[in-house]
Structure formats: C-alpha cells, structure tokens
C-alpha cells in the first residue's frame, strides 16, 4: 500500500515552534504519475544559491532566516515548480509538500507557479487525480472539518460508503464479506465472531493520520475484497519537536446528567476500558457441579462464586469527555545530517455514556393464514438501556532514516470496554401474550495490539525501491458475564418459569494474525517513456479461537419469594445450602460449554504479484497486473455427537479450503485534457467464507431463537469487477466525477433458511448475483455565484446501486409458501445490506483571514434490506436515517497553535429505525433507538 503511505507524509501546512534562531522549511516531493517520492530533486531559494536536494524518500529540509521566499523545485524530466509566499518565521518549521508532473514529450521546460496555500489545498485531490486505483481519502484535516471522533463516523463522508450499526463499513453497499479493513497496509483480525471485518468505531481519529478507501483492485492489493479496502493509517512522527493536547466534551440532553441512567456494579478498572477480572468465569470450566441431590456444599460454594448482581440499577451519568496527548520529535544521529531518528507517542482516552429511553426490539411474523396480511406479534421488547463506553488508545512509533534506508517500528494498542444495563418489558406471543420483565447486564471488552516493523531501501539512483513489512496483531473480544433475568408477570405475580431461568454467558474470541510482505519497484523506460515494474510477495497467517460458556440459575424454591426483583435471586438467604435445601443454585444440568459452538481455525494466504505501469502514447497510462494467491483454511472442531459415537466428526487442523488462484487486474487512465481523466478498470477478486461459516459449528442464538449451522463445504466466491470513471479537476479544489461499476458474483455466499425449520439457517453458495451502480461526486466553490461566496464551497456525492440476487431454491419455496393472497413473487431480491442509494452533501465555509471553518453536512442512505425474510418471517429494512451535522472550528493564538471546535450532531433529531415490511401490512418496528441531538465542544493546543 504505497500510495496510502505517501499521503501520510503529504501532510498539510504545519507550524511548529523550535528553539532556534532561524526557521526551517521541510516537505516531500511526489511524482504525480506514480505517486512515488522524487529522489535527488533540487530545492533552491529563488534568486539565491541556497538550496538542498531531496533524499531517497523525496524529503528535503532547508534552514532559512525569517522572511518570505519563493522556492524552486526542479528535476530532470519534470515540470519545474515555483512555490511562492513561503513564510519562514523565527524558530518555526514550515511544511511544503508538492507533486511534480512529468514533462510532456518535446517540451524543454515548464515552470508551474503556485502559492503555498493553493498547493496545500489541492494535495489530496492531486493524489486522487493521478492515482492508479479508484480511491477516496480522508485526511486528519477532514476529521477536523467533520468533527468526527472515530473512523466509523468520519468515513461516511466518502462516496459510496455507508456504516451499519455505527461500526461496520459498507463500500458501494457491499459489506463485511466484500469489504476489507486493513491497518497501515496490513491485514488485521476482526473483533466480531460473526464478521470478517473489524469494527471501525474502535479507532479514535486522534491516532489516525488518514483513511483511504480503495474501490478498485490492483495486483499489489490482497484479492479478497470487492466493495472496497479501507486502509487506516496511523500518525507518522513529526519533522520537529511537537506536543499536542486536546480535550473535548459532549452533551446530549436526551442522555446526559440523567438520574434514570442505568448501570450496574462493574469492576474497579472499568474506567480504563477493561475488566479487572471480576467478571471472569468464576469457576473452572471443567468443574463438576454437584446436583442438589448430592447434598454437596460445593454447590453453594460454586453459586456463591458468581456475582449476585443481576439487576440493572438507576444511577446518574455525566457527559462524554475525551482527552488526548501526542508528542513527537526528530533527531539527527551522528555526523551525517541524513541519519535521523524520529519518534511519536500518542495516547487518548474517551469515556462516553448513552441512554436510550423506550428502545424497542421486536419480532413479528406473518400469520399462518395467508389471507391475513397484517403481521402478528411474535415478541416485543421495550425498555431503557444505559451504556458506558471507555476507549483507551496508545500508539508509539519510532523511525530511523539513513541516506538510502528507512526503518519504522510502530506499536498500537486499543482498549475498549462497554458496560450495558437494560430493563425491559417483554411480551411473548405463545398464542396468548405472556409478559416478562427482564434485566439485562452486559460487558464487552475489545482489544487490539498491533506491531509493525517496516523498511524501505533504495539504490543510488533511486531506480530500485525495496519495501518490506512484518506485522503481528493480537485481537480479542470478550463478552464477560452477560446476565439475563426474566420474570413472567401475570396479574401482578412475578415468577420464573422453569424453561426461562436466569442465564449467564461468556463468549471469547481471540485472533492472532501475522503478515509479512515484500514489495520491489523498478523504474525504467520503455520507448523513452517512464515505466514502473512492481513485484512482490505477501504472506499472512490468521488463527481464530472461539468459545461460549454458559450457566443458568435454577431454583427449587418458589420463585415468588423473589418479588420480581432480580437481585433477590442470589441473596445469601435465598441460596441453596445443605442446611437450606430449597433455594437457588447454579443449574448442574446445563452444559457449561458445547463442542459444537466452539472452534479454532487457521487461514494462510501466500501471494505473489507482478505489475507493470507504462504509458501508451502520451495520454494513456496503463497498469497491467497479475496476482497469485494460494489460500488455505484449516479447521479444528467437533460436532455435537458424543465422544463414544463412532460417527462423531472431529476436524483436527484439517484443510477445508485450499485454492490457488490467479487474479488479473487492468487499470487504464486516459488524460483527455489536463483537467479531465477517463478511467477504466477490470479486476477479478474473491470473497472467502469466514471462519464461522466454513465450519461444523452449530450455534444457538438465544436472542433471536435462531440456530446457525456452519457449512464446511462452502466455496469461495469469485467476482469480476468492471469500473469506468470520468473526472474533471478544476481550480480551487473543484472536481466533478462520474463513475459506473458492475460486479458479477459467482457462487455468492448468503445465509439461507431451512425449509423444514425456518429458525435454522446456514451459509450457502447461491445462484449468481450482480451489482450495478453509478456514483456522482461534485465539489464546487460557490465563488461563481457571487464573489462574496468565494469562501464557501459545496460538495455532494451520490451513489445509486442496484443489486440482484436470484432466489435460491429453498428461499423461493419458503417465500412461495408464505405469499399472501394476491401477492406475487419475483425472481430475485436485493443483496442483504445493500442500500439502493447513498447521499452525502456538505456546505463549507473556510475563512482565509479569521481561520474559521464551518461545515454543515448531511448524510442519508436508502431503505436497506437488513434481515432477509423467509416467507413467514417478513423482510426487515433499515429505514433512512437523516443525519444532519454542524461543525465549527477556529484556530487562534500565537501561530494559530490553539483551536476550538464546536459540533452539533443529528440536528434533525432523527431516530434510528428498522422496520418489518410485508405485503399489504402496516410496517412494524424491528428496532428503534432515539439518539437525540448532541453538542460537543473541544479544545486543542500545540506547543
């Protein structure tokens, strides 16, 4: 992921204080066509002999007396560039990066002259303009503009990107299976047993330099993505000593300073984002739990070892707050000025609470009588939910750079703990409605620890570049002691039915991931035109371990004695003991763990690629590539048959998928004019079954009452991707782009219900699917309306996507059975998670003099199929969420080293709503949350 790496360095104007008598200017020069550093280019102060050259990394540093200068950048075969108005202040470092373009054939010399400001603004667009891939970037600057606090909320601004559940990114409506998230260009493990990709809300923006979304493939990228790759790039070390402190607070009148907030007693370290061990499984999983009939006092000891807290408690909450600190510096090592050691350390802490009043989660179904259209209630749940979320992140990076080599070591740790307490009233339709009052306590702990060691080496004339990286990652998600206690309430009497005992669940997912990669680049000439050959190797290893542990609390006393209070169940006086053999105890008849819902798996991917980039004529740039991947999944798990059963199936690290595939890619860029590019690309990609899907796991989900059945015979999906794009780049960072894409899926994997049992489902390779889409992106300065509006700009991007999934035989049969009278069934439906349209729009003001930035942004996505129905279970759609946000930031103080930021999210106060839709029926609520409007204020200072 070279391109993305370049963007890191291509930062914006940064003013820093150093304690010296003169100022400094530094920056990086990038080749516009190839996005490579321009090594050994000349940098001269115009009209003087003062100057320097760039190093192999394209980086230069120049010490100057305070004043205003014009810098000249030149290199053989490139258009020279003059940057005017470069202001050098005493003791400060100015940063000037630029992109140099190759001279057109036959021209002797061209000098492009631009001001510092314009150069900065167009930098990201410049990358976009010349990049080989169809890509979109979000810089740290954009995070500031949109006021986003984590990657998940920021990334919505990218065309064709939507975020589900505040965590999961969908690119062009293709989620999870088809969209890949990587960190600093290398694979990272996921944090959700049900998904392949990582949850983006775990990345705070203040450790991120930028995020790139690539929508078309090229040979050096992994082949297992189809919608897009989201590359999260962490901060790089600064060019001079710099410290930043930032603080912010968020107030939501619907949620904060609320005496009805719900919580429960956690552990002493909850505020640090992890549980101290208080919520650990209190007994050994191999513990034999004695039956009451054994009169064994161990039963009481065991029961006593569980926390007696089962009820959600009312307590007050404060507001959200976060603090962050970043420091970094660069030193010259030894005598050579080119030997530089840099470091960066960044920590951040965020503590937030959410409270949803009258949140709903309901299940409806179609009547078994097909003449009745209205949906019938299966289960409703309404109640209040309080959540406390703590996110701590730490990043330490160091780098050492010599004249021709650069080494980097990065360590990242993200720690997140979320404690949730809820009180619900539930109705279950067992023909009669049975009412329950339910207490729910949950704690989810997520962590990622990633190390990245990388190097870049170049030869004397910088025609060869070698890059390598080694990156191990450990990720873990634990649901610790989820407690669910339901009382059946009838005529004011609360009892616990035998078949609905209080439950306690632990889930543990651990993934270890290792990536090694090597990329070599050779710049050479074909027919006297620059060309670039890239080749390399990539190896990844990923292992996952997943298990569920569960307990239930039984009572052989009358459950009426608890008075409907969950916390009474495990009170000392209500426990079963040998002296009081009528009471509550850990149910010895419940299997603590089941082999069929635990598994281990390993995925190995060894890849090699070669690609060549060259120009045909002066206008057509061509990149042809071929990637080979040898992918293998090994599975360890057993079915639910007894160990003594001769038919028991046990997989012990057995290979279940072993594929060797070729993935050709072609990218063409035709420069119609200086401003207009036409692009076309083709790529073959794949989507592989997840660990959970290609398994023999059988996992019962107590929430939905569904049973997931793994499918060990799943095949990978192969996709042919076609992209076309026309783009126009104007002055003042203006641009218009229109893209079209078509994707054809062979053997797509979707979840399918069983005809004989509609609460059982299994992933299967279904009939072919297609996705066809159009994207339009416009960025326009409003100066053309009136000169006074010169500081205003407007941007909008829209994606319109049509996806088609032909029904599988089972799905068609089930849907046919459930058809209402007069309803007809087509041949196909949209893909799950596929939004028919996405709109992002924004209006920005950027004051040149007053350092004021104001932005109003709007984001909405069309009605999206969230849960695929099965005839009697209707389809669930995520309804459009009209998200209007306002953000204002102002820099002030000496050298604008301080800034304040004010943000209002969800100005329209829209609700997050999903609904059941069924022929001729009134829509019914599947889930409803009212996030309300939140106000944030932040301050940051650099010194």
């Amino acid at each position, binding site marked *: 992921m070279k391109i993305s790496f370049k963007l890191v360095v291509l930062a914006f104007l940064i003013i820093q204080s150093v304690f010296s008598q003169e100022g400094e200017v530094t920056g990086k020069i990038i080749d516009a066509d190839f996005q490579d550093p321009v090594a050994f280019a000349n940098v001269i102060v115009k009209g003087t002999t003062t100057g320097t050259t760039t190093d192999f990394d394209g980086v230069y540093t120049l010490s100057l007396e305070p004043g205003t200068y014009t810098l000249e950048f030149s290199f053989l075969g490139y258009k020279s560039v003059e940057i005017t108005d470069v202001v050098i202040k005493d003791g400060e470092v100015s940063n000037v990066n630029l992109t140099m373009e190759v001279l057109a054939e036959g021209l002797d010399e061209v000098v492009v002259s631009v001001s510092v400001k314009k150069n900065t603004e167009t930098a990201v667009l410049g990358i976009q303009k010349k990049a080989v891939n169809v890509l979109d970037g979000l810089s740290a600057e954009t995070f500031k503009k949109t006021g986003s606090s984590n990657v998940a909320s920021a990334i919505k601004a990218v065309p064709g990107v939507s975020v589900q559940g505040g965590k999961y990114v969908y690119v062009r409506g293709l989620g999870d299976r088809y969209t890949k998230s990587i960190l600093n260009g290398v694979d990272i493990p996921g944090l959700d047993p049900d998904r392949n990709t990582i949850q983006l809300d775990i990345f705070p923006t203040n450790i991120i330099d930028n995020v790139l979304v690539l929508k078309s493939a090229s040979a050096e990228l992994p082949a297992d993505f189809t919608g897009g790759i989201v590359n999260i790039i962490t901060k790089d070390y600064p060019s001079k000593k710099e410290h930043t402190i930032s603080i912010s607070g968020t107030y939501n009148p619907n949620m904060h300073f609320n005496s009805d907030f719900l919580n429960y007693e956690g552990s002493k370290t909850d505020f640090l984002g992890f549980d101290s061990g208080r919520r650990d499984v209190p007994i050994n999983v191999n513990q034999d739990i*004695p039956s009451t009939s054994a009169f064994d006092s161990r039963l009481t000891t065991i029961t006593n070892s569980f926390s007696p807290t089962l009820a959600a408690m009312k307590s007050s909450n404060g507001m959200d707050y976060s603090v962050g600190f970043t420091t970094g510096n660069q030193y010259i090592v030894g005598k050579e000025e080119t030997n530089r050691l840099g470091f960066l*350390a960044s920590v951040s802490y965020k503590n937030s609470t959410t409270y949803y009043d009258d949140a709903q989660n309901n299940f409806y179904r179609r009547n078994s009588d097909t003449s009745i259209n209205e949906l019938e209630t299966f289960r409703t749940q309404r109640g209040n939910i309080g959540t406390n979320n703590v996110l701590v992140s730490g990043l330490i990076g160091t780098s050492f750079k010599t004249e021709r080599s650069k080494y980097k070591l990065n360590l990242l740790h993200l720690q997140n703990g979320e404690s949730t307490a809820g009180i619900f009233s539930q109705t279950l339709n067992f*023909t009669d409605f049975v009412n329950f009052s339910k207490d729910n306590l949950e704690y989810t702990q997520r962590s990622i620890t990633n190390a990245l060691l990388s190097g870049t080496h170049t030869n004397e004339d910088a025609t060869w570049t070698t890059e390598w990286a080694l990156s191990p990652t450990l990720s873990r998600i634990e649901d610790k002691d989820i407690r669910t206690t339901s009382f059946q309430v009838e005529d004011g009497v609360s009892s616990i039915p035998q078949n609905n005992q209080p439950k306690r669940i632990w889930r543990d997912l651990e993934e270890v991931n290792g990536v090694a990669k090597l990329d070599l680049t050779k710049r050479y000439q074909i027919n006297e035109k620059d060309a670039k050959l890239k080749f390399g190797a990539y190896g990844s290893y990923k292992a996952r371990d997943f298990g569920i542990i569960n307990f*239930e609390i039984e009572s052989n006393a*009358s459950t009426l004695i608890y008075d409907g209070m969950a916390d009474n169940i495990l009170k000392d006086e209500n426990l079963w003991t040998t002296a009081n053999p009528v009471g509550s105890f850990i149910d010895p008849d419940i299997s603590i763990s089941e082999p069929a819902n635990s598994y281990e798996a390993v995925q190995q991917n060894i890849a090699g690629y070669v690609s060549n980039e060259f120009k045909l004529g002066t206008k057509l740039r061509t990149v042809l590539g071929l990637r080979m991947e040898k992918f293998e999944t090994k599975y360890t798990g057993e079915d639910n048959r007894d160990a003594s059963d001769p038919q028991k199936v046990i997989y012990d690290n057995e290979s279940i998928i072993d594929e060797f595939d070729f993935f050709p890619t072609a990218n063409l860029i035709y420069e119609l004019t200086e401003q207009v590019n036409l692009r076309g690309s083709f790529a073959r990609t794949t989507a592989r079954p997840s660990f959970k899907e290609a398994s023999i796991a059988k996992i019962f989900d107590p929430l939905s009452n569904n049973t997931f059945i793994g499918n060990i015979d799943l095949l990978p999906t192969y996709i042919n991707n076609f992209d076309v794009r026309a783009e126009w780049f104007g002055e003042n960072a203006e641009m218009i782009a229109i893209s079209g894409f078509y994707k054809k899926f062979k053997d797509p994997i979707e979840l399918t219900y*069983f005809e*004989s049992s509609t609460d059982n489902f299994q992933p299967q390779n279904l009939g072919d699917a297609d996705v066809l889409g159009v994207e339009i992106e416009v960025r326009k300065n409003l100066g053309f309306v009136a000169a006074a509006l010169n500081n205003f700009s407007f941007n909008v991007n829209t994606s319109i996507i049509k996806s088609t999934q032909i029904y599988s035989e089972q799905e068609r049969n089930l849907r046919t059975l459930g058809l209402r009278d007069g309803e007809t069934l087509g041949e196909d439906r949209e893909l799950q998670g596929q939004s028919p349209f996405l709109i992002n729009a924004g209006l920005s003001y950027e004051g040149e003099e007053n350092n004021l930035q104001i932005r109003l942004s709007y984001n909405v996505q069309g009605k999206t199929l969230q849960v695929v129905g099965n005839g*009697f279970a209707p389809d669930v759609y995520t309804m459009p969420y009209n998200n209007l946000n306002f953000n204002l930031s102002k820099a002030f103080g000496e050298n604008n080293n301080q800034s304040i930021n004010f943000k209002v999210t969800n100005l329209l106060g829209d609700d997050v709503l999903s609904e059941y839709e069924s022929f001729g029926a009134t829509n019914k609520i599947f889930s409803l949350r009212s996030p309300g409007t939140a106000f944030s204020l932040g301050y940051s200072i650099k010194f």
Partner: protein
Amino acid sequence: MKKLFLSLLATTALVVSSCSDDDEPEIIEAQATCNDGIQNQGETGIDCGGPNCQACVTDVDPTATCSDGIQNQDETGVDEGGVCSEIITVSGEIAEDTTWEASKMYLLAGKVVVGTGVTLTIEPGTIIKGKPGSGSLASALIVQRDSKIMAEGTAEAPIIFTAEEDNIAIGSTAGTNLDQNQRGKWGGLIILGRANGSFKGDVTEVQIEGIPADDTFGLYGPGDAQNDADNSGILNYVSIRHGGALIGEGNEINGLTLGSVGSGTVISNIEVVGNVDDGVEFFGGTVDASNIMVWAQGDDAIDVDQGYSGTISNAVVVAGDVSDHAFEIDGPEGTADPETDSFIIENVTIFGSSVAPNGEYADYRSNAMGITKNIYASGFQEGKDVELDANDVAQNYIDDILNFEFWEVTGADYTIFSEKVAKDENDVEIESTIIADPTFTEAAEDWTTTVEQDANTVGATLTDFSWTYSNTKGSLGF
C-alpha cells in the same frame, strides 16, 4: 501532570489487559464424601445411608469386588447385577436391529437415533439413563421415521427412562435420590413418523424442535410417503423421568414427543414425571394414546398441535408447583380439515396445583378443533380457567368443530370456562367476544357439574395407574 497520568494510564492498560488473561480458577474438589468420617451430606449415619451414600449395613465385606466369584455385595447373581451390572453407553445411530436387555443398564450419550429400517427392542424392566447436558449436548432417544421401537414393559417391570444421576438399581423401579422436582437432567424420548399433520405453509415435513435442521433424522411428517397407519412400534408400560433438557429459551425436549406418529403405533401405559417442558406433546399424527400419566411437569401436561387427529384416553395429570396447563391444545397450522385434523381427549382426570403461579386447566387456541369429554378436574386455584383463546377458536366452537362434554369439577363450577379475545402486545383487546346467547361460560353449565372431591363419575380409571412411580413416590393412592 496530565501527560504523566495519561502515559501511565496507557501503559497500565497495555500491561494489565495483556496479563489478566487465562488465570483459570481451580476445580473445587469435593469435600463431603462417603468416607470422610463425617455425617455431612444428608446421611442417616456416618458415611452411610441417606440418598447419597451406601446403605448403613455392616455385613458388606469391604474387599468385595465384582470379580471375586462370590455374591457378596448387593449383586443379584455371582458378580452380576446390582452394583456389578454392566452399563452400556450408547450414542449415535443404532444401525441394526438391537435388543436392550433388562440385566444391563443403558446410558444415552447425546442423541441416540434408531436407524432407518431398524427396530430397537427393549426388554421389560430395562433401565435406560440419559447423560446430563443441555443445548446440542442434550441426550435423547430418537425413533426416526421408518424405524421402530418395541418397548413393551409390564406393570411389574416397566421400562424406565431416567437421568444418569438417578441411583436406581437394576431390577428396581425407583431410585432414592431424586424426586419429581428434579427436572431437565437429560432430554427425552422422541418418536417420529409419516402420518398426516397440518403444518405451516402446508409443507409436508418439518424438523422437530431441539434438533438442528441439517440432522435429517429430526424430520417428521409424510414427506413423499404419507402413511396414516404408520407403525413406529409399541410403547407400553414406559416411565420417563427427570427429562426435558434445555435447548434454548422456550425450546426444550418433552418427556414423550410424538411427531406425525401413525395409528399403527401402540402408545399406552406411559408415565412422564418431572419434565421441564410438556409431559406428552403430539405434533400432528394419528396415533391413539391411552393410560397416560403426567406428574409435576414444568410446562403443560398434554399438548396437542398441528392437527393431531388421534384419541387420548384414560389419562391422569397431577400438576406440580411449577406446572402450567393440564391441556394445551392448538389446531392445524396449514390448511384445516375438521375430518382429519380433530383430536379426541376423553376420560381424563386432572389435579391442579394450589401454588403453581400459572397452573391453569386448559387453553384452546390457534384454530383448535376436536372434542374434550369426560373430564374430572380438582384442586385448581380460584381464577384458573379453561379458555378459548381468541375468536378463531371461538368460531370453531360456534361451528361445532370444537366441543366439550361431561366435565365434572371439584372446588369450582362452570364459570371456569371462559371466552377470551386476542390482545395486542400492550394488552389491549383487538377483537370482541363472538359467542352470545348463551355465552360460552353460560353454555358450559350444560356440560359442567360441580361434584364433591372424588365423587366424580367421569375421568380416568385411577387404578390403571397403580403401577406408576408417581403413585408410589407421590403417595397418590391410585
């Protein structure tokens, strides 16, 4: 200072979270034993007696073994029977005709499935135990479609299905350590056939609850070979105890589950004790069942669904402290035909619980159709009812396809019969009653008589149940 604090914080987070893992608690070893010299676990003497330890006898040779060639323990022969009986663990498919012998004890490990075309014969007096476990590990004996069970016990030597924990000895009919309130210690007995049923969407076969759908041995219903006279074998004098292992919320194994079992099958003299879920549940099918006893079930005693069209006769229900309905009757789920989807329940005695919070008489719902007659009910709490759940069943009553005849009750009168209407989830009625002049309750006066305790003239022949464990253990006096 803040800087220091923050760095400290991050470092602590890193360190603590990476080393707080995997300190598994140690296994708590048993303390109270039968040789610890302390009377500490319900024993009647030191280390002997009580439900847990060996009987307090002094003449057992401590060196006695099962291979010493001497009948010196509680063996029934030389080195055989009693403590020396062979325990045979069975699991998975029974692939060929098999006989389980009374001289051995059988232990079901997980799902034991009688293979297609295979007959499992169980001798009278045989004890079959189920291993504990819930979810996918729940043990059960499944007689799948096109296979047979020949379980013909006798009143003196019933065939007993119970939990592994039960200390019942070979040759006896009851253990001492469990009672009717010990539930969910294993799964249950499941018999599946190809007789008619009325299923949602008119599918011809469905998966029995509790078995994942890719295990096709869990299918019941005609499929492509309907046979209303389907013969799954014989169950006679069978006692099923302490079962009903949990699969998931509201998803348990019944004591005896009958899915589309055909009329060629014999089901009689069956007892279900202390099951978490229902006693006997009929999912469609045409089989008749007689002499059925259900005691202290966790949910409903007799449950009928999916257009079951056989006759249940001479049954006794004795509710326990946590029992629900005595009868829970649902109708056909697909296309309904009163000719083929109507049940008959007759000659049943139901004893209610004075404490069970939800201990109702009966609930008729979801298009239920059939007749319930010659019923004697006693011991229910005031306010408990026999209800028509909503307009659809009320309409069946009006249309004369849901009928009641000859009910006698003690401690209540005809007002236990009540017509209810459908409500939405907020408890708001969404329809109004449709049986008028007379109302359902008024009409019930015609078929309901209040009688003194045990002065009933209808109901079950209780003496037919004198063989049961319930009768002995519960001192029911049958």
